[in-house]
């Protein structure tokens, strides 16, 4: 069972990961966007970390709702309402239970991802964060390590895609050949979740991770270098 502290640790780990990778997220965004994804995500997740440290809520649902609200308020770009909705919808799905099962976590994240799809109108294949989140949630039934590998693979698979949503879609064919920044930051969030859930990161150590995924699940952090 997962308690409020687990979700706090997830989001603090995500904030640390975003902080480490912010410059690279901005670099990816400068190729097909407006070069603010890293800056915006760092500002948003720093606000999340501050809010959780100063007043950690008692339930998993409340942790996610609080974090989602911070992201909506503080990011300043489209990733704010999108990630904010992901966490807020997932938090609402968890209800007021003090502890939740991994199955409940999976269902809540699925509800969050569905809410992101409704909000932005995107579907997998549009070169958005859904290209990492949708396979991650689908793989979550096999474990957190499998979800991390699926998210990472999904983010890598956005490179040849043509953007059909958001600012990058204005570029048309010129968006092909670049990795989507939103899918990349989504993979960081899923990797942080796997990290705090204790999923093994070394190839061969995690029996739940299918072998084709091991090559992208290597290392103690998610490497987003091309």
């Amino acid at each position, binding site marked *: 069972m997962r308690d409020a502290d687990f979700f706090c640790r997830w989001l603090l780990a995500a904030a640390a990961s975003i902080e480490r990778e912010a410059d690279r997220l901005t670099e990816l965004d400068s190729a097909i966007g407006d070069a*603010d994804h890293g800056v915006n995500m760092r500002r948003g997740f720093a606000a999340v970390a501050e809010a959780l440290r100063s007043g950690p809520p008692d339930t998993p649902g409340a942790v996610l709702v609080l974090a989602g*609200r911070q992201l*909506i*308020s503080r990011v*300043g*770009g*489209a990733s*704010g*309402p*999108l990630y*904010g*909705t992901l966490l*807020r*919808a997932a938090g*609402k799905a968890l209800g007021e239970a003090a502890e939740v099962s991994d199955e409940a976590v999976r269902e809540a994240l699925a509800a969050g991802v569905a*809410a992101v799809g*409704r*909000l*932005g109108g995107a579907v997998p294949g549009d070169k958005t964060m859904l290209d990492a989140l949708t396979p991650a949630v689908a793989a979550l039934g096999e474990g957190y390590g499998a979800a991390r590998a699926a998210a990472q693979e999904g983010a890598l698979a956005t490179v040849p895609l043509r953007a059909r949503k*958001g*600012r990058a879609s204005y570029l048309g064919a010129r968006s092909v050949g670049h990795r989507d920044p939103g899918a990349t930051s989504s993979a960081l969030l899923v990797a942080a979740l796997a990290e705090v859930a204790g999923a093994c990161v070394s190839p061969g150590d995690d029996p739940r991770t299918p072998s084709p995924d091991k090559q992208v699940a290597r290392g103690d952090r998610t490497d987003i270098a091309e």
Partner: protein
Amino acid sequence: MSDTVGVVLVSHSAEVAESVARMAVSLAGGGFTRIAAAGGTADGGFGTDADRIAAAARAVDGGAGVAVLADLGSAVLTVRALLADGDELPPHTRLLDAPLVEGAVAAVVTASAGGGLAAVEAAAADAYTYRKT
């Protein structure tokens, strides 16, 4: 619900939101006050500030509903996120599917004439049908 509908204009730019608000009020005859601009970010840059949007909606809410017009991207997504599962906006707040400038003029003209939220929404959405060529 005897008061007029409130109007909130959301743009990535504070200047755009404020200027469109002044222009719409002027084109509607000048007397409409239940309108607020929510443009740009808190640090003065281009972007969207959810708290600014929520404060603007509360400021213009007189009980007859609040019509929100937004330009694009994060402005639209932020309003939709606030409407989807938040309690930050007053009840009877609606995002209008309309172009920002033309929709704002239509909304303010209709609201200042005493039209309800549905009439304001219809007038603003109708702005899409005015072809320019």
